[in-house]
C-alpha cells in the first residue's frame, strides 16, 4: 500500500507540476495553452542534447559535439530556453488574438497549431527513436533508496522531492508575493488591474514564461526517470495535464496540484496486470468525477470561461 502511495505520488507530483502551467494560463486568460505539451517535449530533448552532446539524428544528421554540460546546468539552461520559448508563443500565438478580443476557441486552435509545429520540428530534428539519458550524468543521484520494505529508485525520489519543493514554493509565491497578487488581480479583471497600475501585459508574459519553465522541468524529470519515447510523448502528457486541471478545477492553482497527485495515485493503484489500461482507467475515473462534480474537485465557480 505504502509502495503504491509512493509510486503514485512520485509520478503524480510531475503531473501536478506540468498541469500548474496550464492552470496558470487558464486562470489568467481563461484559455488552454495546448503548446504546453510540446514545450515539455522540447525541454526534455534540450536537456538530453546538452548533457550528451548529441544533436539531431532524425532527418537532420546526428551531430556529436564535445560540449557536454553537467546535468543540473543542462536542466537549468533548458528551463530558461523553454521559459523564453513559452513567452514567444504568447507573443505570436496569443497576443495578436487578445488584441482582437478573439473567441477562446481561436486561442485553442492557435496554440494547438504551435504544438503541432514544435512536435514536428522535433521529429524532423531527432526522428522518432527513443532517447535515453547517459546514466553516468546522473551518477550523483543514488540508484536505490530503501526504507524497510519500501524501495524506490533514487531518481523517482528526486522527482518527488523536486516537484513538491517547486510546487510549495510557487504556492507560497502566489499567495504572499507582489507577483502573486498581481497575477490574481489580472486573473480577476484585467481592466481593473491595469487601472490599479498593475502591468497586465508583463504579468501575462511572465505567467507564460513560468508555465514554460514548469513544462521544461517536468519534461526533464520524466525523461530522466524513464526515457524520451519520441517527440509525440509531449502531446500525450499534454492530454494528461488537461485531465489533471479538469479534475482539480479549471484555473485553480491548488486544484492542479491536487488533481495531479490524484491522477498519479489512481494510475499507480491500477493492478500491474492491467497497467496497459492505466490511462483508460484514469480517464474513466476522471469522467466519473466530472459527472458528480462538473466544476472539478476544487472548482468554485461554474465553468463560464469555457
Amino acid at each position, binding site marked *: 500500500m505504502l509502495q503504491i502511495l509512493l509510486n503514485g505520488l512520485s509520478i503524480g507530483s510531475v503531473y501536478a507540476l506540468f498541469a500548474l502551467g496550464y492552470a496558470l494560463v487558464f486562470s489568467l486568460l481563461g484559455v488552454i495553452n495546448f503548446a504546453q505539451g510540446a514545450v515539455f517535449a522540447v525541454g526534455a530533448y534540450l536537456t538530453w542534447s546538452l548533457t550528451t552532446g548529441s544533436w539531431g539524428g532524425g532527418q537532420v544528421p546526428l551531430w556529436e559535439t564535445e560540449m557536454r554540460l553537467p546535468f543540473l546546468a543542462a536542466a537549468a539552461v533548458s528551463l530558461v530556453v523553454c521559459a523564453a520559448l513559452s513567452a514567444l508563443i504568447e507573443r505570436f500565438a496569443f497576443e495578436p488574438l487578445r488584441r482582437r478580443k478573439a473567441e477562446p476557441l481561436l486561442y485553442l486552435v492557435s496554440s494547438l497549431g504551435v504544438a503541432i509545429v514544435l512536435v514536428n520540428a522535433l521529429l524532423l530534428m531527432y526522428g522518432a527513436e*527513443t532517447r535515453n539519458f547517459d*546514466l553516468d550524468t546522473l551518477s550523483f543521484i543514488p540508484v536505490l533508496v530503501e526504507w524497510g520494505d519500501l524501495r524506490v529508485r533514487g531518481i523517482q525520489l528526486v522527482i518527488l522531492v523536486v516537484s513538491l519543493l517547486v510546487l510549495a514554493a510557487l504556492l507560497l509565491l502566489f499567495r504572499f508575493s507582489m507577483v502573486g497578487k498581481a497575477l490574481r488581480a489580472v486573473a480577476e479583471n484585467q481592466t481593473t488591474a491595469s487601472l490599479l497600475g498593475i502591468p497586465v501585459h508583463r504579468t501575462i508574459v511572465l505567467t507564460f514564461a513560468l508555465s514554460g519553465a514548469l513544462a521544461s522541468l517536468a519534461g526533464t524529470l520524466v525523461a530522466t526517470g*524513464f526515457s524520451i519515447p519520441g517527440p509525440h510523448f509531449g502531446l500525450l502528457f499534454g492530454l494528461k495535464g488537461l485531465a489533471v486541471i479538469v479534475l482539480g478545477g479549471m484555473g485553480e492553482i491548488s486544484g492542479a496540484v491536487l488533481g495531479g497527485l490524484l491522477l498519479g495515485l489512481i494510475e499507480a493503484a491500477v493492478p500491474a496486470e492491467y*497497467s496497459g489500461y492505466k490511462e483508460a482507467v484514469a480517464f474513466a475515473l476522471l469522467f466519473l468525477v466530472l459527472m458528480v462534480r462538473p466544476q472539478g474537485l476544487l472548482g468554485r465557480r461554474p465553468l463560464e470561461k469555457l
Partner: protein
Amino acid sequence: MLANRNVRQIALGGALVLLTFGSHLGAAMTEPLPIGAALSQTSNVALLGQEQIIGVRLAEEYFNSKGGVGGTKIQVILEDSAGDEASAINAFNALIRKNVVAIVGPTLSQQAFAADPLADKAKVPVLGPSNTAKGIPQIGPFVTRVSAPVAIVAPHALEAALKRNPQLKNVAVLYAQNDAFNTSESMTFQEAVKADKRLTLGTIQKFQTTDTDFTTQASEVMKVKPDLVIISGLAADGGNLVKQLRQLGYKGLIVGGNGLNTPNVFPVCQKYCDGILIAQAYSPEAGDAMNKALVELYQKKHKKMPGQFTAQAFTAVQVIVEALSAIDQKKKVTTYDVKELRQELNKQILGQSFQTALGPISFDKDGEIVQKSFYVAEIKMDADNKNGKFSFLK
C-alpha cells in the same frame, strides 16, 4: 431488342475471353530478377528492420558477385512495412504489383498474420526473416520462414540460466501484451518454466511496447524476490524495463527474448544490460562457410559483427537465389512468366536443403524451418557502458 441482346452477349463473351487469357498471359520475367523485401524502415521497429535491410542488401551484392541466378542478376526491391499491420499490407501489395518472384518479410509476426495471407492468395512465396511466433508457416502453402520459432529457440536460454545458477528456483516473467510475437514467446517461456520441476513461476507481469514507466511491474517483481527474470519485449521497452528493474535492486539473472536480441538495447539499459542471457538462432562465430562470407562482407562495411536479424534476412535471400538457381539448371528462369516461376520457386524451396550462415537448414511440408544449430549469448557491456557485445557461451 434481339440485336441488342446479341451485341451484349458478344461483348460479355469477348470480355470473358480476354479475362481468361489475360490472367494466363501474366508478365514475363524481367531482368534483373526482382525479389521483394517488405521490412521496417521506419517506426519503433526500425531498429530491427534496419539490420534486416543491411542483410538483404549484402545478400544482393554477394550473390550478384557470384553470378546471380545462372548469370541473371537479382535485384532486391524494398518497401517499408513500418511497425503496423496496415503498412505491411501496403508494402506487400506494392511488391506483388511490381511482379517480384518472392517476398522477404515482414519484420514482425504481428504484421505477418495480416499481410502473409495476401501473398499466399496471390501465390507469391513469402520467406519470414524474423517472424518467430507460433502459426506463421501454417498461414498458407506459400508461407515459409527462416527464423526458427520461439518454441524451439527460447528454452535454450533457460537451460543456460540453470547452468549458471543450479539453485535457481523462483522465476518472474514479464511480457509486452500488445505484441503477438512477445506474447507467443512468453507463453513458451512460461510453459518451459512450468515443465521444469526445479522452477516455480512467481509472478507474470504484462506491459505495453509503448510504455516507459515500469514502476508498477518492477515493484511487483521485487515483491516475489525472484532468482530469474524473463523478459519478452522490444528493444526500447525491454531495455527500459531491465534498467528500472536493476535500479530497483534486482540482482539475479535476466533472460531476454528475441526482441532484446539487438545492439540497440545497449543505449537503453547501458551498464544494466550486462549479463542478459539471450538464446540465438545464429552466432557470428559459427564456422559455416556462408557465415564466414557474411561476416567478412559485413565487417568490411560496418566494422562490427553482424547480428541475428541481419543473418536471417541474408539467409532468406540466399534461399530464394539458390532455389531459383536449381530451377534455372532445368529451364532458364527468364523464360518463365512470373506466376509460373513463383509456383516453381515455392515447390523448390520446400524440397531443397541449404548451407547457410545459420548452419544447414531445410523446410518441413508446412514451410517451417528445420534448423540444427542453436546458441546462447550473454550481453557484455564495454567499460564506457555505451557499447557492448553478444558474447557466445560455450
